[in-house]
């Protein structure tokens, strides 16, 4: 186990979805996907975004792409044209998630070549 950041084993892409944001997490390997499927639960993601998201978190799985897709339900300060926030579209929420620190098994780290 090594304590490191999520960006070591995943990519991310985010954008707006109504008054919330859609954060896609893309595993860098099959082993990383298997690990993240267990580790990156709705609860863990909700806790990570507690300063940004004031609603629930929903997770969807797309194993064919190695993607875990998260919906943060109230993360844009109103959404659309009503938001006053700098990041009114949640464009940076993917990078925010990749900053998460977690214990990652060494074989998972090896599977992505780090």
């Amino acid at each position: 186990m090594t304590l490191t950041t999520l960006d070591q084993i995943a990519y991310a892409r985010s954008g707006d979805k109504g008054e919330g944001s859609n954060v896609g997490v893309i595993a860098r390997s099959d082993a990383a996907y298997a690990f993240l499927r267990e580790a990156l639960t709705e609860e863990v993601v909700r806790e990570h975004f507690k300063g940004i998201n004031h609603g629930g978190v929903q997770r969807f799985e797309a194993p064919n792409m190695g993607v875990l897709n998260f919906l943060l339900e109230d993360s844009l300060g109103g959404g659309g044209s009503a938001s006053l926030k700098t990041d009114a579209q949640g464009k940076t929420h993917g990078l925010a998630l990749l900053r998460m620190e977690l214990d990652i098994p060494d074989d998972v780290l090896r599977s992505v070549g780090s």
Partner: protein
Amino acid sequence: MKSKDKVLIANGQGFWGDSILGPVRLIEEGPLDYLTLDYLAEVTMSIMQKLKTRDPSKGYATDFVALLDRVLPKAMEKGVKIVANAGGVNPMACKDAVLEVVRKHGLEGVKVAVVEGDDILGELDGLMDGGEAFTNMDTGEPLAPVREKVTSANVYLGAFPIAEALDQGADIVITGRGTDPGLVIGPLIHEFGWTEADLDQLAAGTVAGHILECGAQCTGGNYTDWQSIENMAMIGYPIVEASADGTFTVTKHEGTGGRVSRDTVVHQLSYEMGDPANYITPDVVADFTSFQIDDEGSDRVRISGVKGAPATPTYKVSMSFQDGWKSVGQLTISGPDALAKARLASEIVWQRLAYDGFEYPEHERLVEFVGANVCHEGVPVAGSDEPSEVVLRLGVKGPDRAKVNRFGSELVPLVTSGPPGVTGFAGGRPKATEIIGYWPALLDKTKVRSTVSVHELQPGGPS
């Protein structure tokens, strides 16, 4: 009416405000059958409706007309057909402007088709009288209480009307509101003769359309490992090589910047994806968990095996309504003690306003200290000396207004065609503002004579 084995479809405009260089280079830099262009966002329709109210000849994407003026001769010479939702809320006026460009370049014979029927603002009251509640999909509230404030109402049309326009020989298809993937599926239906029953093919077209719809976001733009992307300035815009059976390959023109790999494509697939197993369009419900995605190397990614389910019985309606007012301003505050002074400055603003009787409740005001982690508020940042965000200010000036304005249109495109984490573009495209010159000089006193005259009210009238 199957006309060829492989059809090449590109998207050169990911959103209203994307760089004009995308479509210009797509036409010039390699083979292409169809160029699609997406100009509409939800807010756009409302802005266009307002423009049309003021001037009945407005209300469409004028960027499209400027683009055609630049590329139309070359596009027609190469046989590239153009499909764009540039019509906004006034597709007929857009068509008139496009025909002007056709005439200007002596391209008589070019056929311009218009797809209409998405704009239901005029029919809204009749539909509501007929029992349609237009319940808000997110909140469950009925439309009636806000009906008077509605400024635009548009149905997301599907791909078949676009195919029909192409069947009738159109070189350019102008639509109003439709689904973004529809711009791509329409040409595929036309080329391969797909029907409503070809669910897997329509779903494949939907996946292809989703990959293309944000332009360079699938070719290395807004990509996590941005350091590994070469020549982002000249990033290639995406092209799909589609076959009649629904399989397709994502690629880009040779020699362009950026990259097409499994990872860059999956980045875009996961963008605003929602529930991957049920991606709903008016034509089909696509299953984004069904397909296989293979990196073939050399900037080629193949997608096969997409599955689709029958479409739902409803169209999605996008409405906008007047929902209040807003104002945002900013100051830059230097160190020492930058953050403490910024906190004080914001308190001063609220206190002075309150003194004068203007109170703004918490949920109706914004305080951000840009540079002190506003983008990732509350997210722990593991040991780093880097500032948590940087505000990039760029500017130009000069005697040529058009040249100064051209600069402003290259900033917002970075959101989809630059490094990841670019945001804060709510102000849109910066516009040229006039520089007011100051001209102090001297003049001999003898050349100036001062006069004094005194006036007063006369009885019965002004002086």
